[in-house]
């Protein structure tokens, strides 16, 4: 790929593109999970009306805020765990394979 393989001096274009794609995938995945979670918690599945009523709207706002908090909480817990285990992110299930 690079003309002189000098110990990965800086990311190639392909690597930059891949990183940007991965970033986008992560954001998309999180949005999808948030959406699934909050539609499930806040919107009953009977569909007697097509509008979001006031209670449902408020529920969605609070649900999104709590989802975001859980996301932060989980990442803090994983980081604390990773540090306790001695860095490098290992020990998370199959992650170390």
């Amino acid at each position, binding site marked *: 790929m690079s003309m002189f393989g000098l110990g990965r001096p800086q990311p190639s274009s392909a690597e930059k593109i891949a990183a940007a*794609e991965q970033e986008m995938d992560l954001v998309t995945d999180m949005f999808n999970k948030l959406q699934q979670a909050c539609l499930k918690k806040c919107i009953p599945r009977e569909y*007697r009306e097509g509008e979001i009523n006031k209670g449902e709207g408020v529920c969605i706002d609070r649900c999104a805020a709590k989802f975001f908090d859980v996301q932060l909480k989980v990442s803090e817990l994983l980081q604390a765990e990773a540090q306790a285990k001695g860095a490098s992110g290992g020990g998370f299930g199959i992650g170390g394979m």
Partner: protein
Amino acid sequence: MDGLTAAEQREFQSRMERKQMKEFMGMFSNLVSHCFDSCIDDFTTKSLIARETGCVSRCVKKFMAGSERIGQRFQEQQAQMMQNPPPGR
């Protein structure tokens, strides 16, 4: 994405377009699944009955309204996260 040649820029853009298309298709198929699962329970007929058609319309409308509202909250949270970046970097 600076430091890319024109050809790379174009390649990158075309990949992003494909990804958005894929994303849209995924949402479409999830929406179909969800509204089908929520609204269709009568298998004595081969065609949708009025109750089912109405339910699907409301389901799509409500799903999209909910999705849009969640999208707004999500974008606000993303904007907030820019100032307070997530761990693992």
